[in-house]
């Protein structure tokens, strides 16, 4: 187990370096190849030449690429000092970049918004796991029944609906039309019930989409597993149907679901961009959208980086969980 853990941690560390290089590449090299001035893209197209020149100096854009990557990398762990155009800007560790446009370090912006996104993703995940997996298992067990057909039609509809449309519909119906919910986001510190009211529609909307996906996949996996020999063996031994499904089939069904959950949660933590935009939740995704509108590239960079790290962490967690559940994994 320890050897497995060390191997996984080492792989994660390598991946971390790769991620940092890739994110650097997207924001510093791709624009260069596409013929865009990097410094301009960092301050916005309306900025005056002096400010652009200052940013170019601060980011050391005339130095070799390797120096730039190193500065970028170092900033994440020990902080960074931007000097250029006659002023010096301090960005303490972990420096996820600095917005020259709004004159603030990115890290506090990220930590500010992170809890909102985390609450959104976790709440929705609980809902979609319960409903999606249950619907999928029931459909598989009662294959071909009215329930199965009905659930699968709803699920197919669910995966075909864009979340910003279901979100707006639910706002129009439940908040404006029926007036059941006041869909204003209220910070948790201010009022628990207000917070709950603001989160409930985003949770349900997000969970609906994912529950549809999970139901389809759970059903397909369950059907495949029910055809396996060991299920027939379990039945032949005379085990109760409950035990066959609950203990034998469910365990194998949950393995791919867990993998998906790890990836989806990681991705959502980094940016439930569409949901947050639709419901005006002040999370990371909304920060990205505002940054797009203000041409504030460093914020997009920061969120992209933190998201990738969240995904990396989620995958690491899933891998460790796997090793606990399934002994074959750690021995392989």
């Amino acid at each position: 187990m320890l050897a497995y853990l060390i191997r996984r941690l080492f792989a994660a560390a390598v991946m971390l370096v790769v991620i940092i290089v890739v994110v650097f590449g997207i924001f510093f090299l791709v624009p260069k190849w596409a013929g865009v001035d990097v410094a301009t893209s960092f301050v916005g197209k309306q900025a005056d030449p002096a400010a652009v020149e200052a940013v170019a100096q601060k980011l050391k854009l005339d130095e070799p690429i390797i120096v730039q990557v190193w500065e970028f990398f170092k900033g994440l762990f020990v902080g960074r000092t931007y000097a250029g155009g006659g002023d010096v800007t301090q960005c303490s560790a972990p420096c996820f970049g600095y917005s020259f446009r709004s004159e603030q370090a990115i890290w506090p912006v990220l930590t500010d918004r992170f809890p909102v996104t985390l609450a959104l993703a976790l709440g929705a995940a609980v809902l979609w796991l319960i409903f999606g997996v249950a619907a999928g298992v029931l459909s598989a067990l009662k294959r071909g029944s009215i329930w199965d057909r009905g659930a699968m039609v709803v699920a197919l509809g669910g995966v075909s609906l864009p979340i910003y449309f279901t979100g707006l519909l639910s706002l129009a119906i439940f908040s404006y039309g029926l007036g059941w919910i006041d869909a204003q986001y209220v910070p948790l510190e201010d009022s628990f019930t207000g917070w709950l009211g603001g989160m409930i529609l985003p949770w349900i909307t997000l969970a609906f989409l994912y529950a549809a996906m999970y139901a389809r996949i759970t059903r397909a996996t369950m059907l495949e597993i029910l055809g396996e020999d060991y299920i027939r063996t379990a039945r032949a031994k005379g085990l109760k149907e409950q035990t066959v499904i609950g203990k034998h089939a469910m365990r194998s069904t949950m393995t791919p679901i867990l993998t998906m959950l790890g990836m989806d949660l990681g991705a959502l933590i980094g940016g439930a961009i569409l949901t947050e935009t639709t419901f005006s939740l002040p999370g990371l995704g909304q920060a990205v959208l505002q940054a797009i509108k203000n041409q504030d590239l460093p914020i997009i960079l920061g969120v992209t980086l933190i998201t990738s790290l969240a995904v990396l962490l989620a995958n690491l967690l899933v891998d460790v969980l796997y090793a606990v559940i399934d002994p074959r994994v750690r021995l392989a």
Partner: protein
Amino acid sequence: MTAPLHEPTAEAAPNAAEEAAVAGAEEAKQAVQGRSLGRIAWERLKRDKLALTGGIVVLVLIAIALLAPVITGLVGQDPETRHEDLIDPLFGTPTGSLGGISGDHLFGVEPVSGRDIFARIVYGAQISLLVGFLSAIVAVILGTVLGILAGFFGGWVDSFISRVMDGLLAFPQLLFIIALVSVMPNSMLGLEGTSVRVFVMILVIGFFGWPYVGRVVRGQTLSLREREYVEAARSLGAGRFYILFKELLPNLVAPIIVYTTMMIPTNILTEAALSFLGVGVKPPTASWGQMLSSAIDYYDSDPMYMVIPGVAIFITVLAFNLFGDGVRDALDPKGSR
């Protein structure tokens, strides 16, 4: 190239034989021999009513996109003319009921600008389908070439391509797509405005889609390259590239078709999401996602403005999904149908 195609035919034989049993054993034998995979798939697809409905809707949508100028010309509207006389100057919403729906404006007009929604929906289909199809083609070409190389050559080529695929699959694509689209220039390769946005979206969405195809193609290639017919070709002196493109590729057509049809709806949703977030197509060019994004401010005062583009996206994506599911079932030799 008939030898490998016997594979699925043979597996599907019980199914075919069952049907033909009624007609008589003699005929059944001929039927099994004479039917190609494509033929079998088509016959299965014909019986799948949901998939056929999806397919017909897809064809209608393609026709709408191609004939957009003709259709809008027939109702005497175009997507960019402003009808400000139909807008309530106080609230900015259309004056008529249901968002200004009338004989002239079938789906009403947009708040503030008063542009005809029907015409914008019709033109929006062009962007959606164009990006959906072309980005799927980009992804399929990349995925097929890299997947087949990884599966066939193995070794470090395989490890490298597989790592890249895992990496791309693990990351939140929407965010990376947004990042890439937002660092891209507003004009390149002689293209400007809408065309450059569309071009960039096709490239970027296609780039993030290829690992899905690549993974499947790699897996299939791995198992196919050990088959006897490949060995036979090799013993006859066939070169590597002959085996790759003449022996292996034709057998990968089925999974590739399936993944292409499944990828189009996802890409259409991604395009709509990008335009919704303001990094895709920009007004006055019409796009469904961008219409929905403008509709956020009016969801209470003019709900039709949000419902119409939303339903357009829903119908399109659902039709492609139904058709895609049907194609998958029809081409799957182990399928239950």
